[in-house]
């Protein structure tokens, strides 16, 4: 909301010359200032001059020499090429050393041998547009028709000097979307008197012209007022009015339209003006019919639908209620009779219509916030006042006023203790009452009555805020919190953090990726039609296909991230991510049927373009290290070849008994190609909740061994397809507690072993908790192991 300082002074005399201080004061009392601008700063040393004499330039046919009286002792000789100058014309004169918008400097200069002591200015040179001075000739010197005096500073003469402050108005204060509303806030901030406008409604009484409203959609129109004015003289508005509109960012059009805009900005009540002679029959406020169309004021043909509220006559649609008028019934130079409209339409309806049409206006922005009906007659009255003041017509005319709702000011019990308790203050009842009075509240016996326009005041907490903002938030004493319980540890969140720390310790960098992905990933991951991962939660109103579903696996996010890194030529990348996969699953929670199970996933991904430093086993080692440290024991890796996006021979499920934690493996080469990745891409996806449930985080000390350990090597030959894990399980099973560590140190296939066989070699560390193991005993154990292995065709090498 833009506030003109000049306009503000109609209502309140803020004795503050420092705009910055004013902005600060307003911000701290609750009207946040976004920025402010001092208009006219760019123009210096430009005055009003009167052309006394025009002579031909001796050496240039297209130039003339003007003698210009600028109210100084000596008049100026100014050379110009403009053709619209004439003797006695009042013109803007940029004197020697003048400054103009755009950083232009004017100096005395010689033009074709003749000294020119300044410059006569055009609209453009003063940074103005034709709409600001509609009578001006766009490419000529600005010939002033205003009531100006010779020698007067152009900034004052053309009302170019003002300060414009931009306020951020919160949604609870639509009343502040007006000069009057902000003036009220300024008055309260400085505790000074407000010049409340008086609205004279005498002109409503006479019904000399016929005006008919047939139907008003009750649900979407709270009040509908029309007022007809006859025999108007449409022209441009006076300078002061144009200047104010320009300052607050509204383009002057003509006196009638300008009045509607002026009233809207001043009082916050949008108005519309129809050309009465274009209205055929009775007016109604109704929903549009499907297929109806309207060319709006901006010349665009709008297709309407039956959710939109329109103003129509018996033949056609005249305007889209609260949004924009129609071109056909607009006020033009030829308009003779005018109908002013001042109404309150349903805010939500206006908002939705404006959004559908992509047509937000100053008017719709105000309707959206929810207007009050008390202001409708005020707006008509103010418009009539201006009609009279601007001498446009006799404001007396027919009025129609249809009221569909009742409004009354809110009354709240004044509980000073509660206010003080909420704020942590010790204000007296008088102080509290004073602050409220500054804001226009009325003190009743035990209650306070809020001003009619303060519908946001509903309870004591609301009063507390009013008091606090005038008392000053920063004057409220700061108090440390009273002692409380210690923060309860959140085990699951801690677990996730611990996982992250371990991944970091293993050289992985954490990523944060979008939860929404493209359904195209399903194809890229080679998922079959029936794959459960395709069963996803869809967003009803996505930004685009790109982010239209909730991911059912974190793998595509990881692959995209890896792809981005590869396209940046990062050679070797190890990443991890802790974020959810969103599984579609119907289940009931306490509030009804839910459809999504949010599963936090621990995802790792890595590639190495050269393929030297990262392979399946480096990756597996990292996961094993992490699982061990996080307290997950007895997990197994089970080869799987049914994950469509994974290498069928290089992927394993990680399981504890029959429970699946997730999988690890190398990406399927086709999928790698689909994501424009190199071949050597490794990924892991583990379900964190399952991990959390299975992790043994409690640590109990085991006594250090008393007896020495014995080391043995075991080199075995077996079928080349025998899994190492199988051999390990037999060794473990046989040696039981005597086996402290079992470590694979070599696998060999080649000439030294028969074809189709491989050699597998282990280091065994044996130790007993009860005695020192002697060789004889160990030999016996080993023989038992070998015997067991032999039954599976695994023999000592």
């Amino acid at each position, binding site marked *: 909301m833009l506030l003109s300082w000049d306009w503000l002074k109609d209502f309140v005399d803020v004795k503050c010359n420092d705009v910055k201080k004013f902005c600060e004061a307003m911000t701290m009392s609750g009207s946040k200032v976004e920025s402010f601008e001092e208009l006219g700063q760019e123009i210096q040393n430009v005055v009003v001059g009167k052309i006394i004499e025009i002579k031909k330039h001796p050496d240039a046919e297209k130039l003339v020499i003007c003698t210009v009286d600028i109210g100084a002792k000596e008049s100026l000789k100014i050379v110009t090429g403009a053709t619209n100058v004439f003797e006695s014309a009042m013109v803007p004169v940029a004197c020697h050393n003048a400054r103009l918008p755009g950083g232009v400097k004017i100096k005395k200069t010689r033009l074709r041998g003749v000294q020119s002591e300044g410059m006569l200015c055009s609209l453009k040179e003063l940074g103005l547009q034709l709409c600001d001075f509609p009578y001006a000739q766009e490419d000529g010197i600005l010939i002033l028709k205003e009531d100006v005096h010779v020698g007067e500073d152009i900034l004052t003469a053309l009302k170019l000097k003002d300060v414009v402050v931009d306020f951020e108005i919160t949604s609870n204060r639509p009343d502040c979307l007006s000069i009057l509303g902000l003036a009220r806030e300024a008055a309260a901030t400085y505790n000074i008197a407000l010049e409340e406008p008086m609205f004279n409604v005498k002109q409503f009484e006479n019904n000399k012209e016929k005006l008919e409203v047939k139907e008003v959609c009750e649900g979407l129109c709270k009040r509908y007022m029309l007022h007809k004015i006859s025999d108007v003289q449409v022209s441009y508005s006076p300078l002061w009015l144009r200047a104010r509109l320009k300052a607050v960012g509204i383009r002057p059009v003509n006196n009638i339209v300008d009045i509607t805009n002026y009233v809207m900005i001043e009082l916050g009540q949008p108005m519309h003006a129809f050309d009465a002679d274009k209205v055929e029959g009775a007016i109604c406020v109704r929903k549009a019919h499907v297929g109806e169309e309207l060319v709006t004021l901006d010349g665009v043909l709008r297709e309407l639908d039956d959710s939109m509220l329109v103003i129509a006559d018996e033949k056609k649609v005249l305007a889209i209620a609260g949004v924009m008028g129609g071109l056909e019934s607009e006020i033009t130079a030829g308009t003779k009779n005018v109908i002013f409209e001042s109404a309150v339409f349903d805010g939500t309806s206006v908002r939705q219509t404006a959004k559908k049409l992509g047509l937000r206006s100053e008017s719709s922005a105000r309707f959206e916030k929810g207007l009050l009906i008390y202001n409708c007659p005020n707006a008509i009255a103010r418009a009539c006042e201006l009609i009279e003041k601007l001498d446009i017509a006799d404001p007396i005319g027919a009025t129609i006023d249809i009221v569909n709702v009742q409004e009354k000011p809110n009354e709240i019990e004044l509980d000073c203790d509660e206010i003080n308790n909420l704020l942590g203050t010790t204000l007296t009842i008088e102080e509290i009452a004073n602050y409220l009075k500054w804001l226009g509240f009325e003190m009743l016996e035990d209650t306070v009555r809020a001003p009619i326009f303060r519908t946001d005041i509903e309870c004591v907490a609301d009063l507390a805020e009013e008091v606090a903002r005038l008392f000053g938030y920063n004057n409220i004493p*700061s108090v440390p919190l009273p002692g409380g319980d210690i923060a309860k540890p959140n085990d699951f969140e801690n677990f996730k953090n611990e996982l992250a720390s371990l991944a970091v310790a293993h050289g992985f960098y954490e990523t944060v990726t979008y939860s929404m992905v493209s359904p195209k990933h399903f194809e890229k991951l080679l998922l079959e039609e029936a794959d459960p991962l395709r069963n996803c939660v869809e967003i009803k109103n996505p930004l685009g296909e790109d982010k239209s579903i909730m991911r059912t696996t974190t793998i595509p996010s990881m692959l995209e991230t890896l792809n981005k890194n590869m396209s940046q030529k990062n050679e070797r990348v190890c990443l991890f991510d802790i974020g959810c996969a969103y599984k579609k699953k119907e289940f009931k929670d306490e509030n009804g049927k839910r459809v*999504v199970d949010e599963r936090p996933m621990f995802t790792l991904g890595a590639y190495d373009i050269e393929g030297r430093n990262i392979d399946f086993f480096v990756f597996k080692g990292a996961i094993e290290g992490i699982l061990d440290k996080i307290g997950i024991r007895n997990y197994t890796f089970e080869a799987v070849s049914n994950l469509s996006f994974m290498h069928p021979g290089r992927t394993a499920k990680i399981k504890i008994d029959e429970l699946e934690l997730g999988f690890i493996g190398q990406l399927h080469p086709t999928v790698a190609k689909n994501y424009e990745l190199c071949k050597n891409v490794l990924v892991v996806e583990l379900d964190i909740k399952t991990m959390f449930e299975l992790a043994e985080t409690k640590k109990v000390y085991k006594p250090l061994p008393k007896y020495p350990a014995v080391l043995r090597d075991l080199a075995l030959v077996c079928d080349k397809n025998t899994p190492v894990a199988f051999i390990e399980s037999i060794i473990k099973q046989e040696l039981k507690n005597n086996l402290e560590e079992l470590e694979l140190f070599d696998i060999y296939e080649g000439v030294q072993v028969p074809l189709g066989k491989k050699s597998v070699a282990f280091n065994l560390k044996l130790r007993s908790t009860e005695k020192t193991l002697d060789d004889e005993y160990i030999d016996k154990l080993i023989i038992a192991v070998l015997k067991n292995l032999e039954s599976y065709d695994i023999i000592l090498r």
Partner: protein
Amino acid sequence: MRDIIEKIKNMAKKEISEASNIKVLEELRVKYLGKKGEITQKLKELSAVSAELKPMLGKLLNDVKRDIEELLTFQMETVRNLALKEELERERIDVTIPGKRCMIGARHPLNATTNEIVRIFSSMGFSVVAGPEIEWEKYNFDMLNIPKNHPARDESDTFFISDELALRTQTSSVQARYMETHKPPIRIISPGRVYRIDEIDATHSPMFHQIEGLIVERGINMGHLKHTLDAFARAFYGEDTKTRFRPHHFQFTEPSAEMDMSCFNCGGAGCRVCKNEGWIELLGCGMVHPKVLEMCGIDSNEYTGFAFGMGLDRAAMQKFAINNLKLFFENDVRFLKQF
């Protein structure tokens, strides 16, 4: 005999002091002091010496024996030191050759920031709770006093899954959820992902992060709110940080405020970062609206509280002087390695 002893002594001294390795010295010990060593021999011969010479020769022999022992020890030490010195010299390396690094990763700056903020509030007794990202409208809006046709509920701002389920637009949803099932005293914080319909650019993203705080106890007032959040700002941005509270509006708090902090770039003097204001908007806060308390089944006459919410992405951007939000979600490892 005396001369012989002297001779042995001189010979020993000479040989020992010329010896340059441990092995030679050991041999010399045997030669002179061993069972059949020269001094040992002479000591044995003492029994044949006359009684008057015995004490003198005995003393002399013992002195010589002691001298040789001392000399041997000394020389051994010298030789060892020399050998050690040589060894150390041999082992000299170029310490300016780069070290062999152990690979270590890093947390994402956003999560590092979140953790730091969580730590600060934890120290003030706030427990971490989490809530779902796909949320009932009831918790995201209704119970936060955001009525059905409030603009904040518009389809153009919120991603909807179904008529009643949406991607939460604020972590404030956790407030309602928690209060509904827990009785005061309540002190919680809840960081997490939130979603709003916004195209991705340098300062916007359809997914971003917030942290919500809530305290509901007997006797909590705005003074507590101010102190807590001011203490947080000083802990997070530095002890010199100043804060100010401005009136604002949120549906679920009353009175409501926004907290600004003195610009971290210019310290409040005014610069490009703070648009010459000297202040930077940091978070929204306020006293929990009595309607919200009542909707959650908490007696607003008995309990009061305050709530706050701040954007984590912006906090992290400020913390690390990151000028583009996109960097967080691109996860270029050259970016991630900086934290």
